[in-house]
């Protein structure tokens, strides 16, 4: 699954560590999601959507 996490994070000038801290996950988790190595669980996807105040489908895209 593709996602726009890196772009959205860059728009807010957040580092991976900043985003990880806001989501209460590890920096490795953020890196793995951004590089497509890991698809987040549904609760984490909702958390990300809430943080960016966007619908999930605008952050996570079908391949």
């Amino acid at each position, binding site marked *: 699954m593709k996602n726009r996490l890196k772009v959205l994070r860059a728009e807010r000038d957040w580092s991976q560590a900043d985003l990880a801290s806001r989501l209460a996950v590890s920096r490795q988790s953020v890196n793995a*999601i951004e590089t497509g190595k*890991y698809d*987040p669980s549904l609760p984490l996807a909702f958390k990300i959507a809430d943080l960016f105040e966007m619908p999930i489908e605008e952050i996570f895209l079908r391949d």
Partner: protein
Amino acid sequence: MSEHNQTPGLRSRIYKSLKPDWAFGFVLIVGLGLLVLEVQDPAQYVAAKWSASAVAAAAIVLTLIIALLATVVAALDRKKTDDYHFQIMANSAIIANITAIFVHMVWNLAEPRLGTMSVQIMIAILLFAWGLGYFFYRWRGFGQ
């Protein structure tokens, strides 16, 4: 046409025909059966003072208790560890189990040369494979 509308291939059909409940029911029965049979073999335990049936009963009770504790600990892990690391640990544990079972089978075939595999070696293989699996998933990921 989308991928979902295509007829599934042979491999896909075989995977879908596998029923996890039946497969793990089989695994559970085979494991329990082996546990009961193996303790009957005097070569498996040298200094046991209990009868074979008492040893089998003790092994089953101990396994039940430890499995229950492990389930509780895994649930704690899931809550306290972030999802990504929990997924890696869980997936690499599957690799460790499969690796340990098949290494044991191959070792058995080569028993005349390698000797009998000790429990310590089995645990070492399990831990080694778990670590390998962990770093394999860290490197490759499992999002695809």
